[in-house]
């Protein structure tokens, strides 16, 4: 009797296992688990994993479970492209996502185009993927790099007491396009503003002293810095001893991971930053509260912008596939381009058909020490709607023509 039950159970388990393997919707997740992107890639993956668990617990998508097939791009474009290609050719994936670095993003989006697989961007944000390298399978779920720089410019323009700005950035594609977009928009909004010659330093520069000194030599009211990660941490720490926060202000990128890293070393005031999904400044919905609670239960920390992006994008994929009634690529893309999406970072978001850009907002605020959090957050956070930051169709067409 016992044997019989056991056999019955194991047969059942086997069939269930087989059904699961055959029917799972596979998501190709190519992300920089090692290399320069490691800290933020892990956050994005954690958010996505949580979304997949929640979706599967409530019956999956179209009655099928979702399965993340995770690959490490090592933050190298060749490696990321290779991994994406293997996933597309051999794993039967229905979606590509997870990419962090811009250069890897461009490599992966080529593969998505070739194999006609939807590609959702959740961390990497180069606008090239929307403009010159655009293909109809690409969807950018966050404000891209130029949109963020434009949000910073809009914010700075409103500070009527600021009349002199010194821009600086990392010396590579992202740093230069960010500085150019920022300066361009600021000149439009405040033609009388004095803007110093931009200063560029190598990516990941540790000794920011010389650059801070050079930027301060023009006596700016604010320094705009298109830097991130370790370079940004160095800039803030060293900037204090050069009087950056006594004589001037800093406008930069402040995602939750940077705020957490800085901790008490963050100056008490005069630091402003752009963020993609700062959980403390988002609309405090029950869904967000539930997500934060679930995230803390599993990972024992507050979710960063990347975790929220990772979560939102998996939920949106589920919504698009459900609306399309299939995981077939063209139908899913059509569903993305016609639907409206609610997420933790904003509601009622839509995707433009001609560049795959979602009208995701950018958040800009001022550093604040709120005793209810173990790290600095931001106050007076302004939400810049995506539409106001997106280039018009004509501008994008002109940029595409110019790039040919």
């Amino acid at each position, binding site marked *: 009797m016992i044997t019989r039950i056991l056999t019955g159970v194991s047969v059942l388990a086997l069939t269930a296992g087989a059904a699961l393997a055959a029917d799972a919707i596979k998501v190709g997740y190519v992300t920089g688990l090692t290399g320069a992107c490691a800290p933020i890639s892990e956050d994005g993956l954690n958010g996505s994993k949580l979304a997949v668990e929640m979706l599967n617990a409530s019956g999956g998508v179209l009655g099928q479970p979702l399965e993340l097939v995770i690959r490490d791009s090592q933050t190298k474009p060749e490696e990321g492209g290779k991994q994406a290609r293997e996933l597309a050719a051999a794993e039967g994936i229905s979606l590509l996502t997870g990419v962090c670095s811009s250069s890897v993003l461009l490599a992966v989006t080529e593969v998505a185009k070739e194999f006609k697989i939807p590609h959702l961007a959740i961390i990497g944000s180069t606008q090239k993927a929307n403009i010159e390298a655009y293909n109809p399978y690409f969807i950018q779920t966050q404000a891209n790099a130029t949109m963020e720089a434009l949000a910073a410019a809009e914010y700075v323009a409103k500070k009527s007491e600021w009349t002199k700005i010194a821009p600086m950035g990392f010396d590579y594609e992202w740093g230069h396009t960010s500085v150019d977009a920022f300066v361009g928009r600021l000149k439009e909004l405040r033609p009388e503003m004095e803007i110093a010659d931009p200063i560029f330093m190598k990516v990941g520069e540790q000794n920011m002293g010389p650059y801070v000194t050079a930027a301060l030599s023009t006596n700016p009211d604010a320094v705009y810095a298109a830097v991130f990660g370790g370079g940004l*941490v160095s800039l803030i720490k*060293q900037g204090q001893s050069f*009087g950056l926060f006594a004589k001037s202000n800093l406008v930069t990128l402040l995602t939750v991971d940077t705020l957490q890293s800085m901790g008490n070393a963050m100056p008490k005031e005069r630091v402003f930053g752009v963020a993609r999904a700062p959980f403390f400044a988002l609309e405090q919905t029950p869904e967000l509260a539930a997500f934060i609670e679930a995230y803390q239960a599993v990972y024992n920390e507050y979710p960063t912008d990347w975790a929220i992006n990772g979560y939102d994008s998996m939920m949106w994929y589920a919504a698009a596939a459900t609306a399309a009634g299939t995981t077939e690529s063209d139908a899913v893309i059509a569903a993305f381009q016609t639907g409206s999406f609610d997420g933790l970072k904003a509601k009622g978001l839509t995707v433009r058909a001609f560049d795959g850009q979602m009208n995701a907002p950018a958040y800009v605020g001022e550093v604040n020490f709120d005793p209810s959090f173990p790290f600095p957050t931001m106050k007076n956070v302004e939400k810049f709607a995506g539409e106001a930051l997106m280039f018009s169709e004509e501008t994008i067409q002109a940029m595409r023509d110019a790039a040919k």
Partner: protein
Amino acid sequence: MIWVQLVNGLMEGMMLFLIASGLTLIFGVSRIVNFAHGSLYMLGAFLTYALVPLIGPGSVAGFFASVLLAGLLTAAIGTAFEMLALRRIYGSDPLMQLIITVALVFIIRDVVRWIWGANSVMVPAPDALMGAFIINDTYYPVFPFVIFGAGLVVVLAMIGIIRFTRAGIILRAGTDDRGMAALLGVNERLIFTGVFASGSFLAGIAGGMAAPYGDVNYLLDTTVIVTAFIVCVIGGLGNLYGALAGAMLVGVTKAMGVLFFPRLSMVLIFLIMAVVLIARSLGRQGGPAR
């Protein structure tokens, strides 16, 4: 502004020298190009991060004691590596050096990431060091001065040891003519181990001293090693005083370049290196450490 920038440049030069001096000493004596030197620097930074809260958070003496201890621990790890791995490949194919020292780069990187995670960590510095002297509304940051001073102490101690002690004489003899030194009864193995330990110590304290000023993460190793190689090439690999001159030249050129030719500042350093390589072929072969 020029004076502040000069301080910036000298501080960076001093840090570069502390790193490059170990690299160049090791090469001068044992002809090993230690690609893991940047990893030892990173290890020093992380060990300081771990030690400061235990030894004396907030106090200047506590900070320097932590740095010193971190340097000693790094030296111990370097010594173990030399005795277990490097010792077996002296005199063999240079490719072996590459494989073994690069292996150490990966090992240290993964161990550090495993222990301390992938995110940046903050090394708390005593407040007394992070301030600035304000003269005529210009900020002169304290930390670069302190680093420069501490570096100077290390440099003078090193020069003193090399010039005036028996160990220094043996070291110079070993660099000049290894065979002859061995014939005269100098224990080669001991020199090699000693030099590697000293180089590791220098890298460790450099990492520890710089830690509160910048960002500490597990990718620091490669960030540091490239500039250290440039300094060694300019100074002549194996030449200690050359490394000192090269480090100061790179540090000050970079800082002044940023102020006066912001668009050229990074090219300038490579330009200097190119000129040195063309004009002075000794730079590539390595001169004596004296």
